[in-house]
């Protein structure tokens, strides 16, 4: 991810405010930071019914977890093609609920419910939220849910190319972390003004957390590709090693520098707990896949373990996203720190 995108999306309000206070003379840099930090600049702005919006965002995230589970059940039960038409099912609104049709139809119903929740959330944010980027994030979630529905339709109507199925699974994760971000930003912690923490050591905590999230995201794509037959298991295994490295590194840095910051500590514990569970589930799921190859139909252990592996994988990503957002919310960016130092130096001279 480029530096500019990182700054425009995740820079802290406090950082830009501090930089502005410290750098009245550095107009160009100041303007960039202020502009890019405008989203957080409004973090103390009042929104109508903030608690209700936050709860609704959490509800949408929770429903998305159910949707991910429903989708995973479709794949694990080999039921993706059990309903050959779309948007109707067997030419009806409610098809005969037998065999694999139950999984596919349940997936469509939960998807429709999540789409409605996302629409309500986007409209609610558009009307009640005065941070522009949060409103945009709401519309982004809605656009993603539409794209995801179209991908699902392509998947149904044009067969099972592994690429389409993998993209469908990938967009599902992007949508999920978007809802997580909305829940985060609508929370009291995401809205209130917080004094920034300094982080001058190397590697900087903020980019490290971001890279960990990216590594987990790539790993989920590799897992989806393996699951849908786009490629073998080796990239997914290498990805697991990479994620292990990043999670361990992030954990160590977070503990050393920010171990006493409750938000970061909690997010780190959540990430480690979900990731540890995921490693164990990955081994168990691989065993189940190997055993199921010779079976004529999906076995119960295969379905349970693979669905759990997909679901916990999404939760690992969500935990890492929360940690990253916490870091960007709490820690002053090192760029702002160095600019502040230079400004102080100029003032002394």
């Amino acid at each position, binding site marked *: 991810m480029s530096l500019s995108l990182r700054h425009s999306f995740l820079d802290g309000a406090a950082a830009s405010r501090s930089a502005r206070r410290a750098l009245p003379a550095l107009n160009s840099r100041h303007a960039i930071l202020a502009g890019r930090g405008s989203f957080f600049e409004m973090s103390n702005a009042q929104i109508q019914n903030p608690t209700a919006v936050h709860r609704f965002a959490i509800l949408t995230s929770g429903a998305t977890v159910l949707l991910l589970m429903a989708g995973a059940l479709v794949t694990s*039960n*080999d*039921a*993706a*093609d*059990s*309903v*050959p*038409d*779309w948007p109707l099912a*067997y030419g009806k609104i409610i*098809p*005969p609920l*037998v*065999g*694999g*049709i139950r999984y596919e139809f349940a997936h469509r119903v939960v998807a429709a419910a999540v789409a409605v929740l996302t629409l309500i959330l986007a409209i609610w944010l558009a009307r009640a939220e005065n941070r522009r980027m949060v409103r*945009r994030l709401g*519309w982004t979630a809605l*656009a993603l849910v*539409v*794209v995801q529905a*179209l991908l699902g*339709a*392509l998947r149904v*109507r*044009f*067969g*099972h190319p592994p690429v389409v199925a993998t993209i469908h699974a990938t967009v599902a994760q992007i949508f999920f972390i978007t809802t997580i971000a909305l829940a985060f930003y609508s929370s009291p912690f995401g809205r209130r003004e917080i004094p920034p923490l300094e982080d001058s050591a190397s590697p900087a905590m903020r980019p490290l957390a971001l890279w960990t999230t990216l590594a987990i995201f790539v790993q989920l794509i590799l897992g989806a590709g393996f699951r849908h037959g786009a490629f073998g298991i080796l990239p997914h295994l290498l990805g697991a090693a990479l994620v292990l490295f990043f999670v361990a590194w992030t954990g160590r840095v977070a503990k050393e520098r920010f171990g006493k910051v409750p938000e970061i500590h909690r997010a780190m514990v959540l990430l480690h707990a979900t990731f540890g569970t995921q490693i164990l589930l990955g081994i168990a799921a691989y065993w189940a896949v190997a055993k199921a190859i010779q*079976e*004529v*139909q*999906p076995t119960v252990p295969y379905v349970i373990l693979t669905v759990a592996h997909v679901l916990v994988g999404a939760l690992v990503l969500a935990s890492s996203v929360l940690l990253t957002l916490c870091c960007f919310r709490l820690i002053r960016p090192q760029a702002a720190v160095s600019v502040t130092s230079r400004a102080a130096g100029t003032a002394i001279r």
Partner: protein
Amino acid sequence: MNIKFLHLTFAALLAFAIVGCGGSKNESTSQPANTAPASAKTVDAATVGSVTGTVNLDGAAPSARPINMSAEPYCAKAHSTPIVPPEVVTGDKGALANVVVFVKDGLSADYTFDTPKNAVTLDQKGCMYEPHVIALMTGQTISVKNDDQTTHNIHPTPKDNREWNQSQPPGASPIDQSFARAELAIPVKCNVHPWMKSYIFVFKHPYYAVTTKDGKFELKGLPPGTYTIEAWQEKYGPVDQTVTIGAKESKPVSFTFKANASGD
């Protein structure tokens, strides 16, 4: 933002329209038929011979876990005894059923063959495919019937032919389809009932047979020549033999698959 949002909405609606108007997988697989070569010739019926034989399994058929049909009560009630997957089906003295025996190599590409007028039937009965393995020629009709009082979807997943996936409720008319290109072992699945699996073989020529429980086969009307005959079994894979037949000659060929080996 409003303009961008309008653009986004328009793009989404356009994409919906494209998907909505797109081709359905239920369309007929009417692809260009194989065209006859310029030097097309027909088999001289006065000189043809045949290959006959049996296919056997050396050893005991592997035990298979019964199919769990509890996901669909109708299917479960359709069988009084547990059903095992028909992956390895044997008759008396190890005779092996559901083996496709065919001319793999040696037949001149100049020969042309009429497409049979009769349809090959794939039936869905008791939530199982009958027969488990079928073979037909390019362009020949495959007629899929549903004798069950439950809904099935028929979903062949070929590599060289067009994939299709069609639903068939109880009492629906047979689904007639065909395959334009020769292809071996096209998997057929019912995604409603994941244990339902079948294989379709499509040939350009008529020299193929699928064994029944007596394990016997006969490839009739072969012009004189040297041929590679292949026997394919779902679990044990393919086995080849070479045979030379003269004019009006009938040659016996037997295949034996080892129960605990690949059989190659």
